[in-house]
């Protein structure tokens, strides 16, 4: 199996999950051939990939071209992390007037798109690993699934279930704090609620999120609709297809 790991507009944090696998990463690289991974190796080859892991969002014309080239050169394309899945924190600019936001602009040197977009706006994505950053357990599960020729078992339910399962008190009920848990994909282990703060949405929205119910719950906490929208725009996943039209 030939594997490639690619970086687009991002902080580099999701690729690190490969390094976080430590010994398992070495074992894995004995079984498969890691052909392209700029951060990990100085010998790289661009051929055909069975698996292409892509970190980062598409935010320049060069990246638009490169993601299409990767799609043509791979069998399965896996988006890793909030940037690749939703456009990342840099997609917060998509909701603002780019030109007035950057009125102090003076240089001419870089060709950048006004919007930062998820990979799926340009190419077919076969699988998403959620999170900002992704966690290594999910990466391991996906790698194992491909090696065992089965589908990956990743969470598809909201964060609230993780809190219930771990018996973490609901931050909205116990501390009257806003929490995006009801509409956010589980997978982090309910980190923020376990640190007594509301979820800020870094695993991105579930499919068909009930935004109306969330809005009502926030109103009961005295938080207005516009403030909820701002929280979602800054949730590192604001430009996700499941919520962008509402924002």
């Amino acid at each position, binding site marked *: 199996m030939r594997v490639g790991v690619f*970086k*687009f*507009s*991002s*902080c*580099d*944090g*999701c*690729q*690190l999950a490969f*390094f*976080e696998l*430590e*010994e398992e*990463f*070495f074992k894995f690289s004995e079984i498969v051939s*890691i052909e392209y991974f*700029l*951060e*990990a*190796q*100085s*010998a*790289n080859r661009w051929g055909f990939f069975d698996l292409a892991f892509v970190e980062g969002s598409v*935010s*320049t*014309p060069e990246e638009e071209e490169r993601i299409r080239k990767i799609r043509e050169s791979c069998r399965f394309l896996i988006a890793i992390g909030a940037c690749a899945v939703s456009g*990342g*924190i*840099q997609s*917060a*600019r998509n909701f603002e007037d780019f*030109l007035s*936001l*950057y009125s*102090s*602009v*003076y*240089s*001419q*040197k*870089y*060709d*950048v*798109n*006004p919007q*930062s977009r998820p990979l799926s706006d340009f190419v077919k994505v076969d699988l998403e690993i959620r999170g900002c*950053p992704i966690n290594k357990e999910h990466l391991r599960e996906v790698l194992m699934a491909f090696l065992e020729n089965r589908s990956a078992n990743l969470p598809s339910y909201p964060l609230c279930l993780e809190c219930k399962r771990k018996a973490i008190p609901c931050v909205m009920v116990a501390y009257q704090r806003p929490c995006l848990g009801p509409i956010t994909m589980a997978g*982090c*282990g309910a*980190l*923020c609620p*376990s*640190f*007594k*703060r509301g979820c*800020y949405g*870094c695993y991105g929205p579930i499919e068909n999120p009930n935004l109306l119910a969330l809005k009502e719950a926030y109103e009961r906490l005295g938080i207005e609709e516009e403030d909820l929208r*701002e929280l979602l725009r*800054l949730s590192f996943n604001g430009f996700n297809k499941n919520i962008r039209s509402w924002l």
Partner: protein
Amino acid sequence: MRLRLSALTRVEGEGALEVYLEDGKPKALRLSIYEPPRFIEGILKGKPYHLIPDITARICGICPVAYQMSGVQAIEDAFGVEVPKEIEKIRRLMYFGEWIQSHALHVFFLHLPDFYGVPSLVEMSKVDKEIVMAGMEIKRAGSLIIQSLGGRTSHPVSVVAGGFSHLPEDLSHLIEPIGLALEKSLWVMERLKGLKFPDFELKDIVFVSLWEEEYPILKGDIYFEGQRIRPSSFKEIFEEFEVPYSTAKHAKLRDGRVYLVGPLARFNNAFEKLSSLAKEMALRLGLVPPLKNPYKSLLVRMLEIIHSLERSLDIVKGYKRPEKSLVEFRPKRSEGFGVSEAPRGVLWHNYAFDEEGRILKADIVPPTAQNLPAMELSLWEHIKGLENMREEDLQDMAEPMIRNFDPCISCATHFLRVRIKNRP
């Protein structure tokens, strides 16, 4: 004629190197950084102050704690918040965790393969499994510290202005892995003694670090050549400027001199303040300031790992959860500065806020932008005398020199101002 190394490998982020030749001899070079800008400072404008630690963390997946610490300290500076010493100590512990894991990542995954003549750590593990496994053990200790205090290694969730949103009851589970990592680090250092380091010295470069009572990490004045400068005066002494071939800005002293931040600068400015084991090991390896060989930054990163592990062990052993993890405060119209020693060097934040604490201005200077001129200068010194350079030699020749500086290109590029060419 132009030689081009189109994609740097085993560095964090995306860059290229171009060398211009005349009559077969190098005439000029440039490190061209093409990592796309993400406009983090622009996005912060108009947003509430409390988003600073979570959003600026995303500038860098390798050193998010540094961004969180400089960020919250800038907020606290603006709103006049005094954080108790006991909470500050826990911040230091978390920061040590980041130094350990970020340095270990660089030393083992990115840098050390050069000294073994192999393309990756995976290949290295086939030649010298023992040292690779020791590296993993060391890195894990750093990760565990951050996870215990902040939930996860990259983009931890507990750091807020005023302290922590929540602190664990107990940290005693960290004693064993930290102790083990310390043992392994000392063993690794003994092994590294035998490495051959190319002869090379940085010339005319000013070493800039922070000044603290202890070896600098969390806060302090900016220090170089015996001078101490308040963080609020940073831009009076240092100048950031754009270069046409790079999406990352460069920085120099206003008098035009090139400077370096990071492990070598800290070592040279604060050697005496290293922990006892780190200092002892330094002397045993004959490492004393001024240390000007950038290849030996590998050893200095290891010394800083030993220092961090030793200090962490002290903090963990004496840990008692503070009664309050957080100081309460009210925002006000004001401006604040926050500065700390990221693994790669001085990281400066500056914000202005309105009455409600919304951000009016955000300005961040990361270490790698400050180090780019020193990197270019060193590369130039390294290749200027060479003849008959070929493009295929460029990678082997130039990349090891670049890796000495542990550039984090993702960090360096978050803030570029650009002209927009495409409209939807």
